[in-house]
């Protein structure tokens, strides 16, 4: 901040008018903490102090106090100092600075976090109109995301984790099918995974066609090792820029995930559900694989819609379509949870529909089923799926972000 603003005398004089207590806000932005332990402790101490002094004053009024020789002193409460106007603006600046961490955590792109944060805090309007504030905040957001212990890991882990888990369980299911003699099922699932990998390879090649062979090879290696979702998530979260790439990282990630949904997760999940229902052997492993496939589908679908809508570039390019998600942090969180929930409710019913459709088709064709009693299972599966999908863990945002201490220390060391 000193580097950007401090050099210009005019800017230095102008800053207090644009946003009083700018430094307080910036310090709390750089702290990048969603839960401030120190602040919570102070608040708890203040509350206990108030209760104690209340009890003491009540006791003295009622005449319960044993000795009057003691002087009751209310505990010192850490609080703002100075005149009221300054305090208000300072506390407001601190609140605005602190709120940035949550935007950073719940938004995939750093620029989208800055945009939403600025729109949610009207006090920043003047600052956002300057030509330096938004670029500076974008750089800070990128830096915080990179240095954050949890934020980036959460995104990358979630992006890669779900896909990799899906692949591992699918491989296990294929093995299981082959062992049980269901080769048609195994080959069908292999074909789905293979078609997904083929499409991902094609997308990756088209995206990197202008680059060197080594770079193309590296990118293709990410696909075949199933690390691509994690790499994509990392690039989006860190605001990766590449002039030689055909698409921006967000679009690449969205297209990749959509292809994965259409070629593998959805058909694979449906096939597994159908085989599970009609199979005499119903192992927990097969059920878990179906549930992971379902989880990947629901979460990826909601994530794509969410990310595409809050993208600053999309809102700029197509303002008539993008922007249905409000800019407040609470609204964003609720909207995302509802998007996942909508799919959950609908997804369970849709799988049930497929199950009954397939059973109806079997009946219409008069194909004898080897294990008629296994038709109990549609309900069992649907209920289990419903319970798992309703589980709150599906939509949890880990409420913590750390990092930025180095920057804070650097700020404190400034002349």
């Amino acid at each position, binding site marked *: 901040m000193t580097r950007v603003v401090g050099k210009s005398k005019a800017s230095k004089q102008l800053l207090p008018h644009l946003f009083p207590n700018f430094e307080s806000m910036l310090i709390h932005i750089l702290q990048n903490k969603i839960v401030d332990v120190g602040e919570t402790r102070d608040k708890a101490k203040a509350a206990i102090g108030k209760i104690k002094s209340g009890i003491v004053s009540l006791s003295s009024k009622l005449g319960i106090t044993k000795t009057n020789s003691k002087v009751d002193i209310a505990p010192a409460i850490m609080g703002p100092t100075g005149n009221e106007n300054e305090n208000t603006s300072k506390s407001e600046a601190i609140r605005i600075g602190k709120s940035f961490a949550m935007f950073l955590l719940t938004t995939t792109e750093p620029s989208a976090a800055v945009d939403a944060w600025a729109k949610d805090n009207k006090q920043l309007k003047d600052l956002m109109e300057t030509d330096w504030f938004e670029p500076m905040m974008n750089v800070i957001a990128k830096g915080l995301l990179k240095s954050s212990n949890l934020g980036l890991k959460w995104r990358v882990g979630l992006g890669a984790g779900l896909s990799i888990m899906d692949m591992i369980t699918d491989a296990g299911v294929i093995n299981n099918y082959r062992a049980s003699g269901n080769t048609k099922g195994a080959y069908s699932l292999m074909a789905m995974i293979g078609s997904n990998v083929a499409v991902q390879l094609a997308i990756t090649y*088209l995206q990197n066609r202008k680059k060197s062979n080594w770079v193309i090879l590296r990118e293709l290696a990410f696909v075949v090792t199933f690390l691509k979702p994690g790499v994509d998530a990392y690039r989006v979260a860190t605001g990766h820029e590449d002039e030689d790439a*055909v698409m921006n990282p967000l679009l690449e990630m969205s297209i990749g995930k959509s292809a994965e949904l259409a070629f593998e997760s959805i058909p694979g999940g449906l096939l597994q559900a159908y085989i599970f229902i009609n199979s005499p052997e119903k192992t927990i492993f097969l059920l878990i694989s179906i549930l992971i496939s379902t989880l990947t589908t629901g979460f990826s679908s909601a994530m794509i819609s969410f990310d595409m809508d809050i993208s600053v570039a999309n809102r700029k*390019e197509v303002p*008539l*379509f993008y922007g249905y998600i*409000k800019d407040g942090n609470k609204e964003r969180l609720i909207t995302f949870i509802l998007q996942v929930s909508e799919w959950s409710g609908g997804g369970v019913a*849709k799988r049930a529909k497929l199950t009954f459709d397939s*059973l109806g088709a079997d009946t219409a064709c008069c194909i004898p089923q080897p294990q008629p009693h296994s038709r109990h299972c549609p309900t069992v599966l649907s209920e289990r799926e*419903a319970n798992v999908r309703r589980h709150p863990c599906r939509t949890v945002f880990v409420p913590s972000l750390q990092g930025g201490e180095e920057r804070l220390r650097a700020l404190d060391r400034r002349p």
Partner: protein
Amino acid sequence: MLWIAGLEGALKYMGALVTHSIVKVLVDYTGMLHCRGPKLAGGALFTFQTIVSQCYPFVALHFYKTSEIEDKTDVDMLNTVFVILASSWFLCVLAFLRVTNRDFWHTFWSTATGWQFTVDSYNKSNDPETKMLTIFENHHSFTESIKLEVIAYMHEHWAEWERTKPAWFTPNFIASVDDEFMPQHAVEAEGGARRRRSSVPSVREMLGIEKE
């Protein structure tokens, strides 16, 4: 209809077929809101498909109920489960509408087609960047009807953009603009017939069918 920018002829139709097939699967089985775009499923069709998907389980249950399957699961219980699921979905939709921006509700039942929406985006925007992205990031057939209007607009503002140099007015952008959209003096200043050109990434180019 989504015509992918850079695709022409049979490839244009193949690209659209593949894209819309994928979108149909995504809408039916995920209800992905992004697919309601006028160039994908379209708002009205998206909502219709989503509602139909919620009705299908009851239709399937009816067939199950009237089928001759032995040892059926309790149909009444299944019906109750489906009613609960459909109701919770409906409540989620209501809550979703409540927390989202009202100005965009119309996108859930809009019947606008891809080219209508693109033209609308151009006409309703006052931002030159949005206007230019709308024209040059979409398939040229979407904006064929307003081509002369766009040319007039660009000729009128080109000098101003050269003077003020807005962030989007980059050499890459200029290289992506056809000669006819630029004033003659600007074309000559850029090198005339030999000026650097680049288009929206063409799939033909990417596949190596056409030289860059």
